[in-house]
């Protein structure tokens, strides 16, 4: 009996201490999961501006924007798919390439407007096929978009013959592609516009709300009377349209288009989304985070190039960052419980 008494006296005290310490660590992790990316990005930029010679130059800022814009535009769109708990859309690769080729090739022979119309139709077809298969057939997004990637690249190369297409020098596309406002290229403004627009859609509209809920619990959301299949379809349509615009930006920037232009952008965009701290478990996620992730990756790559560090190390860095970002998220989730 007595020993129980002493224990009852002793243990809770000890326990209190441990939780106090645990509490501190927990709050730190929580905090870094919530704010981490904001701070890290800020620190990275400041540090680079101070230590990396030439980083802060106007020209270089433009280069960072050029890096960020295309993958960023894909990423803000693909955030919807990620938040819906469907991992990613691999088929952005053929989609970006297709829209780029269409923009240059079609506008060369029929003019800009027809090109945009055709590209839009194609991207809607992509969005429909992916969205219906995943949303209505409840098929796994990775596999579905893998299949549409195979098909899409096949069709693109079959139709385009794999040729590289050039727009006329000084043509509308070329001019827009090189258009700059101070250090800010048009493509960056497009990214900002897309981010603001889609950020609003995700956080402020009924659709975005339903999507977030769906990401958190599919069944409960359906039983709340939400047309979940349609929500998923919506997510894929948004991704497709973003991919199309990314294709336009790429094509305009180089005034050329070829079926290989978008290689690796699928995982590239996903990496940015994850590094931004969006949760692939559904639940937490925002366009702002995606944009930060994109900025972070672009700045980092830019720094690595400026400091003449090889391509291999760039890949290593991105890989490590992904794991790091998600580890923090996971730990936060853990202590949150």
């Amino acid at each position, binding site marked *: 009996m007595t020993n129980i008494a002493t224990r009852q006296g002793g243990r809770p005290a000890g326990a209190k201490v441990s939780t106090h310490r645990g509490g501190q660590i927990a709050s730190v992790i929580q905090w870094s999961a919530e704010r981490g990316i904001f701070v890290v990005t800020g620190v990275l930029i400041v540090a680079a501006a101070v230590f990396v010679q030439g980083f802060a130059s106007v020209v270089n800022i433009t280069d960072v924007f050029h890096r960020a814009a295309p993958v960023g535009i894909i990423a803000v769109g693909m955030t919807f798919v990620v938040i819906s708990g469907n991992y990613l859309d691999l088929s952005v690769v053929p989609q970006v390439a297709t829209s780029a080729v269409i923009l240059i090739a079609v506008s060369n022979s029929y003019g800009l407007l027809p090109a945009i119309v055709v590209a839009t139709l194609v991207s809607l077809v992509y969005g429909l096929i992916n969205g219906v298969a995943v949303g209505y057939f409840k098929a796994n997004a990775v596999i579905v978009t893998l299949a549409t990637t195979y098909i899409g690249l096949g069709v693109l190369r079959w139709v385009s013959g794999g040729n590289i297409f050039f727009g006329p020098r000084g043509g509308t596309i070329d001019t827009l592609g090189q258009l700059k406002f101070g250090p800010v290229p048009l493509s960056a403004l497009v990214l900002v516009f897309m981010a603001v627009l889609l950020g609003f859609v995700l956080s402020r509209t009924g659709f975005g709300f339903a999507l977030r809920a769906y990401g958190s619990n599919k069944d409960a959301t359906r039983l709340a009377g939400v047309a979940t299949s349609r929500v998923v379809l919506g997510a894929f349509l948004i991704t497709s349209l973003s991919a199309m615009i990314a294709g336009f930006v790429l094509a305009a*920037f180089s005034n050329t288009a070829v079926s290989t232009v978008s290689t690796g952008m699928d995982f590239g965009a996903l990496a940015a989304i994850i590094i931004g701290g969006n949760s692939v478990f559904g639940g937490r996620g925002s366009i702002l985070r995606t944009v930060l992730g994109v900025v972070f990756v672009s700045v980092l790559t830019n720094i690595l*190039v400026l400091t003449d560090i090889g391509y291999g190390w760039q890949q290593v860095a991105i890989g490590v960052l992904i794991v790091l970002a998600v580890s923090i998220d996971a730990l936060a989730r853990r202590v949150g419980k």
Partner: protein
Amino acid sequence: MTLRKIHLAVASSCLAALMILSGCSATNGGSGDSKHKVWALLPQGTDQPYGTTYLPPLEETAGKMGIDLTVTNSQYDSDTQASDCEVAVAARPELIILWPAVASTVRPCLVRAKEAGIPVTITNSDVLPEDKDLTSAYSGPNTYGQGAASATIMCGLAEGKPVKILVVNGLTGNVTAINRRQGFVDTIAKDCPNVTIAAEQPGDWSKGTSQTVTSEMLTSVGAKNVQGIFAADDTMVAGAIDALKAQGIDPKPLFITSIGNTKLGNPLVASGELDGTVFQSSVWDGSHAAELADQILSGKPYEKDVFMPSVIVDKNNVADADVAPEW
């Protein structure tokens, strides 16, 4: 439920069968038994601009020569190409045309072919010297030589003055990229050590990427410290030149060389922005691969190494008809 499943399964299987049917009938049309059966194992096809313009002349010439050609594309994956090679050997063609995805990995393929008594001709980029004896002949540009040729232009421009240059390479790990770089680097080291590389980055054969990395290299090295640029192909050099312009730098005074003489590069030479490029004719490349195959099959005499002349294109000959760009 079970029945429903069966139905669907049957339906889908029929569909699969149908696709196979359509696919094959599309291709079985051409093949006649009198023709020579030849396999061409390529690392690229319509997935790359060069391959796109390489294939038609290859197939066309083959057709003229009465060759029944089967083409594979390993997308620069040496394992896939090795497997393609096994398939080709098993298909017992009269000859195999090989474009190595990775030169150092094709020896086994060559050995198998030899064992099976199938002659192998190499196209576009040659095998390693020690593997030469396993091949019948080579036709194509010497990708190493192209790098060297481009370096020669550079050396000529530098005229012994100390020159710092930027290098924009092709896709990381890609053989052509590696050879062209090696050819260039070795040659400047040998012929004009006054030319030094200030920085290099991969441009992934893409104009956009090239423009960005060039601009970034200019920033890191400092534009004033750069007197020249070598890009491993015309698409990328176009990007590099745009990068200069975007920074308000006039490309004309800089020494800029490249490889390809494509529809993108040729005008740049004409305009004087690109000082010189090395003509690589995908048409020549493709058609010679087929011709060489035919010569061997029909026992005609043939040269063991048919090198595509590494024609240097600069302001003097840029307008000539025989260097008209092909893609």
